[in-house]
């Protein structure tokens, strides 16, 4: 039993491995350093948001406002940079802005007990429309020294990747090794049982949303430093990509089960399909079809697992 604890995550990783292997055989051009580095850097922001989404979904909630929060953080920090804030101060600014928006979600969901899908849908629309009204779709031009922290592109990319890697590793470790991480799992499995065990489910749920908001702020910064301008719609559609990655990575949408590294592998799997198609000279239109198929298989696998678990459990009634 124990040997199979990670079977779902390993299956996803194996699929990713197959694709990478296939590319190595049929399209070795994929493994050129520069394009590969760019691909990885482009996906870094989504990866960070995915980590936050794992926490929220583990607590049996969902947040579909991440795309809008991402855009807002990017634009606000871009404006701060344009008004002369130093580069190093943008990261804490992003964390604070994102964390504050997450806290608003958290207050409505954990404090007032409203359903997370409705609250975050309202947040998604409100932030997106507010940003449209405020910016009229205008780009923010960043001062020199923000893009790639004023370094060369390759160096900047390496810094971004290393920082993202360290962050993801810390989060994955902390989720398993810190008391609060265990609380996210417990509350997502059975909020009432957790409360009876003396946990504070509302506080834990609130914190999950704050974490996701703060991580979205960090992700927005990781995105801002990649280009000379901030695009006001940079986070458009991000929620779907991130939630899909979480589901594919084996985190139960019903909460309480799954691993952060699984979701990270899930994101990489979904992200490498598009370039793989390009290098294999297939129509790019196939991308969504493949991603959809992978998500469907993931949902199917989860459904079968849940069914067999139920059957297993009734044996003991």
């Amino acid at each position, binding site marked *: 039993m124990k040997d199979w604890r990670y079977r779902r995550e390993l299956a996803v990783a194996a699929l990713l491995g197959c694709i990478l292997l296939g590319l190595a055989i049929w399209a070795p051009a994929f493994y050129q350093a520069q394009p590969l580095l760019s691909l990885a850097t482009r996906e870094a922001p989504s990866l960070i948001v995915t980590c936050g989404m794992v926490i929220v979904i583990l607590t049996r909630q969902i947040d579909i406002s991440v795309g809008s929060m991402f855009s807002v953080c990017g634009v606000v920090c871009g404006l701060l940079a344009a008004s002369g804030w130093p580069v190093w101060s943008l990261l804490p600014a992003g964390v604070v802005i994102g964390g504050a928006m997450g806290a608003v979600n958290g207050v409505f969901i954990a404090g007032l007990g409203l359903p997370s899908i409705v609250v975050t849908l309202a947040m998604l629309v409100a932030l997106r429309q507010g940003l449209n009204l405020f910016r009229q779709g205008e780009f923010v031009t960043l001062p020199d020294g923000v893009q790639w922290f004023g370094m060369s592109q390759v160096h900047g990319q390496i810094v971004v990747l290393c920082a993202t890697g360290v962050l993801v590793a810390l989060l994955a470790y902390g989720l398993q090794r810190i008391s609060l991480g265990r609380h996210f*799992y417990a509350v997502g499995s059975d909020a*009432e049982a957790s409360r009876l*065990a003396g946990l*504070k489910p509302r506080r834990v749920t609130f914190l999950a949303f704050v974490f996701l908001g703060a991580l979205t702020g960090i992700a927005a910064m990781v995105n801002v430093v990649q280009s000379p301008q901030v695009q006001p719609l940079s986070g458009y559609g991000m929620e779907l990509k991130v939630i899909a990655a979480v589901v594919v990575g084996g985190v139960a949408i019903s909460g309480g089960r799954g691993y952060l590294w699984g979701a990270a592998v899930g994101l990489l799997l979904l992200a490498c399909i598009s370039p793989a198609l390009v290098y294999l000279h297939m129509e790019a239109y196939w991308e969504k079809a493949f991603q959809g198929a992978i998500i469907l298989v993931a949902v199917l696998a989860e459904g079968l697992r849940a069914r067999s678990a139920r059957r297993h459990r009734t044996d003991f009634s």
Partner: protein
Amino acid sequence: MTPLLVFQRISKSFGAVRALRGVDFELRPGEVHALLGENGAGKSTLIKVATGAHTPDGGTLMVDGEVHDGLTPALAHDLGIACIYQQPALFPDLTVMENLALRLEKPASFARVRWTDRRKRAMELLAKVGAEILPDSTVNELSMPEQQLVEIAGAVGAEARIVIMDEPTASLTRREQERLYGIVRALKSEGIGIIYISHRLEEIFALADRVTVLRDGSSAGTFDVCDINEGELIRLMVGREVTHLYPPPLGSPGEVRLKVDHLCCHASGVEAVSFEVRAGEILGMAGLVGAGRTELARILFGITPADAGTISMDGRIVTVRSPSEAIDEGIAYVPEDRRRHGVVLDMSVAENVTLAAHRRYFPGGWLRDRIEAGAARDAVERLAIKTAGIDAPVSSLSGGNQQKVSLSRWLATEPKLLILDEPTQGVDVGAKSEIHALIRRFAEAGMAVILISSDLPEILGMSDRIAVMGGGKLIGILPSGSAAADVMAVALGQSGTPGKDIA
């Protein structure tokens, strides 16, 4: 005259628990047949067999003289068996008329709804049971007794000939009860057979023609109500031999640990409860289902905080407005519904053992595998938990072992007061003795223990004193060594000697 419903040696088990052990039962037309028994005597299971919700493991079930092997809820409905539960099972957001139609009309997915006919039918049925309810009102606007009337109207409309009523008067006022009795008598005069479940003995004598007493899943006899008196009924309900040895009690308890003074909670119906528990003492809490025992426990543990009254621990008044505050005050609670809330089923044994005491096991908040594994192994050993391993999910354990996991998590917090709610419900005999021994050991270690149980022998065998609750109030406190019949009599409100020393 053919009986409407006959049970011959019906048996039904759930895992290791034998809920029915060969019950004989018979319902004649035009009779009110009362079913009486302690909590867990098998009444609910018997009803569920009659309505097709449970398939019996053995025995014969006859409706109108015909044997039915595979009775399903749909077939039972077609045979004219209707059940009115204590909590009406209506769709709260639909109107009365729609609820009746769902029960009475043949399902035809695409047929046009004839609203005029529906309304007319509903009004006729409601008039028949004497209910002044508009067919267009939604069910959640109705009071509990009104909902009950809708249920009865549904049963009448379905031309049911066997009507089962599960404690129908439990939540009714005196006048509403009288009206219900009138309806029951009217149904009876039409030749309908009624199975009437109630804990109120005076009601049984007023309404029923015959009474069957269930005890431990078997029938202790069927009697005409004119041939039996209350005392005999009580004796039949509890009169079982003790098949189980309990650990001996401790000599003398210590200081007063918990003192509860005029505790009230309007929302859960607990009224002015006062008592105390000493260190090392086991206070048994007896009473019928709905007597307010679980509600009291939930107040003490801060799940539903009290509106008035005080709780003192070791002579100091404390406020408990959430379980985490209760835990900080040294109170631990093992809830009744273990399968739902006593443990986190998806988490492993080890994770469950440490869950309530992270701060103690992991100062600084860093989870350490070695500490966790040590704690879990210790718990598995001390409580003799049978599990494939400390990493196995708790959902893979048997009921008794889940209960032990639920218990073990509190030992780490070293509580001063341990509240156990039905700790051995659904637990097999062997594990039951082990749990009893553990509870006694906790008391010996100086904990004050409140033991809530519907298993009267367990209360009698384990308790140093026995508190009896009824209707949200503490009715009396009996000394250890009281007879089962005395406790039952107090619980049923039949005793002339209420609590000897209400603290």
